[in-house]
């Protein structure tokens, strides 16, 4: 029996190292195109120190948030992050967020692979029932990636966002445990005999 929940085809998910990784994340946060795909709030780059403190806080507290970093398998580069946020344990539900901060690794399947690994972790290890996300309608690459990973379009809030003089929608997507199991034919790793 040998398997690794945290390794995919292109990337692996690893613990964030507060000391080493905060600098890289701070560099990504300067990129406003990246930040506009990630968040609807005003773009405000974070200082490395603040990011470091946030990582330490997340890692020391009860898991309502689980954030991991995404590393490429070929060269073990730190290329992004993926996180479960606001885990609602009572109802088995969570938000997921992902960002590929290193622009060299966008559009080549790294993010999709990281999301697949994170979904497997959520359903097979955390035993969640539903994983949801929101995306912005101008971020077509992300939406395509989420569809590939198994997310289903659930609804939208029209014209929620104003970017460059144009209004854009908030897009809501989710994947249910049963849908994901049907798509993934996950191997059973344990047996009694």
């Amino acid at each position, binding site marked *: 029996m040998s398997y690794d929940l945290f390794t995919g085809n292109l990337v692996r998910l690893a613990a964030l190292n507060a000391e080493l990784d905060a600098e890289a994340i701070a560099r990504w946060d300067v990129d406003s195109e990246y930040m506009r795909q990630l968040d609807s709030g005003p773009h405000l780059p974070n200082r490395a120190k603040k990011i470091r403190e946030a990582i330490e806080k997340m890692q020391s507290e*009860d898991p*309502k948030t689980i954030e991991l970093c995404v590393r490429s398998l070929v060269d073990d580069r730190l290329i992004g992050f993926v996180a479960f946020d606001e885990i609602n*344990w009572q*109802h*088995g539900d969570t938000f997921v967020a992902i960002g590929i901060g290193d622009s060299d690794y966008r559009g080549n399947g790294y993010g999709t692979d990281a999301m697949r690994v994170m979904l497997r972790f959520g359903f097979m290890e*955390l*035993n969640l029932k539903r994983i949801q996300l929101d995306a912005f309608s101008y971020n077509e690459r992300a939406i395509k990636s989420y569809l590939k990973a198994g997310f289903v379009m659930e609804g939208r809030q029209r014209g929620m966002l104003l970017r460059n003089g144009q209004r854009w929608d908030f897009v809501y997507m989710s994947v249910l445990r049963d849908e994901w199991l049907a798509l993934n034919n996950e191997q059973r790793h344990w047996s009694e005999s």
Partner: protein
Amino acid sequence: MNEGLLAGKLVCLIARDPADAEIVARWSRDTEYHRLGDNDVAYPQTVKQAREWLERDNDRGFGFIIRTLSDDRLIGGIGLWIESWAHGEAWVGIGIGERDYWGNGYGTDAMRLILGYGFTELNLQRVSLGVYAYNPRAIRSYEKCGFVREGLMRGDCQRDGRRWDSIFMGILREEWLLRET
């Protein structure tokens, strides 16, 4: 939906309130109560300690005070501690501090309530507990609520010069649902 989740036949479960610290501190002076509850060294609490305990909040702990329905008395405490959300497993602890209410079904009623709360509100899969072999009244009460003896640890504690086993009991979601429907 679930209107009466926290009210049973004899008792209801109410919020822990620092204003009740004096009552809780009085229970802590009863060493037999301590020994039936856990294997911590029996130690009386000050009102201040009791108040701090009543104020303490934790998002994995769901603690209540037990109040009688007939005469509105606070008689004890009960709580679930989520051991693992991912596996849907919690431990339950109960103590009836008022001796007049021992052996008359009050604890059993409170336990039934918190099992309903755990399985239908928190969506748990399993509730576990530990109890000492010298506490047969509690064991009978737990069995009435549907708990099954699962195992024991031999000679786990020492009381009055003798070693006693601790007994582990548990109830699964499916078992509870079968009993309730």
